[in-house]
C-alpha cells in the first residue's frame, strides 16, 4: 500500500532529526529534501491530519472533515486527501494556512512557522508519489 511504502521510506530518516512544529522551529540549513519531508510528515500528522488525513471521520463518517470538504468541492477531479495532491507547493499551502478557507481558520506563525509549512510541502511531494 502506498502509505506504508512512504512510511518505510521516511521512517529510516526519522531518527536523524529533532522535530517540532511551531515553537522554536527552524529547518536545519543543510537538511536534504528527504529531511524536510520527514519533518513535514511529523508536522502534518500533528497539525493537519486530524482534519485533512486519510483516515475515517468520527462515528461512521467516511472521511475526516477537511478531506471530506475537499472531496465534495472537487467532485473527484482532485483527491480530497492532501497527501495525495500533486499540486500543493509551499506558497499555496501558506496561503490557505495564513488566510483560512471557509470553515478552516487561519493558523498563526507561533503555532505553525513558515519553515514548518515548507516542510509540509516537502512531505506532500513525497506522499503524493504513487
Amino acid at each position: 500500500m502506498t502509505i506504508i511504502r512512504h512510511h518505510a521510506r521516511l521512517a529510516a530518516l526519522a531518527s536523524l532529526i529533532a522535530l517540532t512544529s511551531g515553537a522554536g522551529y527552524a529547518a536545519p540549513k543543510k537538511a536534504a529534501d528527504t529531511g524536510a519531508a520527514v519533518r513535514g510528515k511529523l508536522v502534518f500528522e500533528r497539525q493537519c491530519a486530524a482534519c485533512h488525513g486519510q483516515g475515517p471521520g468520527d462515528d461512521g463518517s467516511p472521511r475526516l472533515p477537511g478531506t471530506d470538504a475537499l472531496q465534495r468541492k472537487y467532485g473527484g477531479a482532485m483527491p480530497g486527501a492532501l497527501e495525495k495532491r500533486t499540486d500543493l507547493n509551499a506558497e499555496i499551502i501558506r496561503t490557505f494556512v495564513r488566510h483560512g478557507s471557509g470553515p478552516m481558520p487561519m493558523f498563526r506563525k507561533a503555532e505553525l512557522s513558515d519553515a514548518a509549512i515548507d516542510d509540509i510541502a516537502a512531505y506532500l511531494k513525497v506522499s503524493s508519489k504513487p
Partner: protein
Amino acid sequence: MAVLPPDLSAADFAKALAEFRAAIGPDWVFSSEDDLGPYRDSFSPVWDTQKERLASAAVAPANVEQVQAIVRIAGKYRIPLFPISTGKNFGYGGPSPNVTGSIVVDLKRLNQVLELDEARAFALVEPGVSYFDLYREIEARGLKLMIDCPDPGWGSPIGNSLERGIGYTMPSFRDHFGASCGMEVVLPNGELMRTGMGALPGSKTWQEYKYGFGPDPSGLFAQGNFGIVTKMGFRLYPRPDFYRTGLVTVPRRRDYVKLVEICNYLSDSMLCGEIVHGSPLAALMGKPDFAALATKLGGPSDADIDAAASAAGLPSWQVDLQFFGPEATTAANWAHAKDMILSAIPGAKAIDGDAFALPATPAQLENKTQPYRSGIRRHGALGVPSLGIWKIVRDDGHLGFFPVLPRSAEAVFEMQRVMCDALREFDKMPSFFNATTAPLHWHSYAFQMVYAPGVKRGDPAHNDMVDRAMHKAVTVAAAHGWGDYRAAPIYQDAVSDTYSFNNHALRRFHESLKDAVDPDGIIAPGRGGIWPKRFRKS
C-alpha cells in the same frame, strides 16, 4: 487595517514594539497586517465592520519570565494585553481581543507538559499544551490515565478551562475548570503568584489540594481579566477498565419528566458518564406538517406530539447512557438504570449497546457497532481528542449561545417554547429551538441548550441578522432566568448585563477588584464584562 493601542501615539507604539522585541526576540513580535491576519476571529459576524475587534500586534513569549517582561512593558505604555493559549476559542471570538488595539499575548510557545503523575492522577501543564498534546504525552509514557477533552480537541486545557469549557466523561471531570487544581499567574504588575498549595514553598500538593489557606482567587482568572495564567494543574481520570453503553426510550412526551429525574439521580450518584438526551422526533423535522407542529406558536400540546410520535412509530424521548469502571460495575450500573427507568415509566424500552475493555481499539473508536442510532460522540466520550466534529462547521463558522437551564423536563419544554417564539422572526435560519430540541448535560449539574447560528463572511445582511438574533436570544433568555455561560468579546457586555442582581452588585464587585489591581486595564479590559475605570463608560 493597522490599528494603534488606545491612547498611544504611533511613535510610542513603535518604542513599545522595540522593547518587546528586545525582551522576547524580534521573530516573536508580530505587527504586520499579514502576520496579524490569523489573530482575527475567523468566525466573526462583524468581520470588516466597525464592530470587529482587532489587535495592534501579537507577541509570543517562550517562558514565564518573558510573559512577565511583556506585562511590565505593556504597563509602562498602558497597552492592553489579550492572552490566548492555543487560540482555538472559535464561536466565542477565537484569538481576537475585547479592545481594538490590544496586543495579543500568544502563549502557544509555552508548550510543556510539566508533570504527569499516574499514581496521584494529575497533570501540570503550560497554556500552549493542547488536549492532543496531553493525550499524546500520556500515551507515549504508557500511563493509565484518561483526559476529559472538549470536542474539537485542539484547544488547551488551560484555555478551555478558563473559558469554563466542558467534556464528556464523568461529572467530576466534565467541568474543566472544576477539575483544575492550582494555578500560576502573572499579575497585572508583572509579579508571579501561585494559588492554593502552590503558595506554600516546598509544598508537594499543588495539584491535590486546590484551596491552600485563606480565600482562593483562582475563580477570578476564569472568564476574567486579573492575570495571565502560565501554569495550571488538572485532576485526571484513572483510566477505567471497561466501557458500556445503553439506550432507553420513552413513548410519550410527558414521560420525559420522570426520565430526567432518574437520569439526574444516576448522574449525581456518579453511576454514569455524560447522559446524551435526544428526541427521536427530530428526524421528522424535514416534514413540513411536523415542523409546523414542533414550532407552533405557544408550543404544541403533549397530545399533539404524542399523536405525531405514535403515527410515525417513534418514541418521544431517549437517553444514551454510558458507564465506566470495572466490567462488573458497569453491568450492575446499567442493570440498575434499566430497572429504575423501566419500572417507573410504562412503555419505556432499553437496548444494550456496546461493551468493551479500555483503551478502545481503533475499530471501537470508529463507533460503528452500536445496535441503534446513538447520539454519543465516541472520541469525546473516551477522552480521545479529535477534530471530527468540524464536519458541522459550514460557511464561515458559527456563534455559540448556550443558555443554562434547570435539569428538568418542564424547564426544557419551557425553553423550547419561549425561545422558539422569541426567535421566530429570524426565520431564515434553522429553528434551533423547537419541541424536539434536547438539552445538553455537559456541565455536571445543569442543562444547556444550543443556539449556534452560522456566519457568512460575504453576506453582511445575513451576519447582521445573526448579530441581532444573538442579542435578542441573550435578552429573552435572561428575562426567563436563563443565562449564557460563555460569550465572544462582542457579546460579553450584553451577557454580563443580564447578571444584574441587586443593581449589578457582582459586576461592581469585579470592577472594584479590577480598579485595585489593574487600574490601567493592562490585562484584557472588558473580558467577562469587567472594565477598569480607565475604560468604563460613565
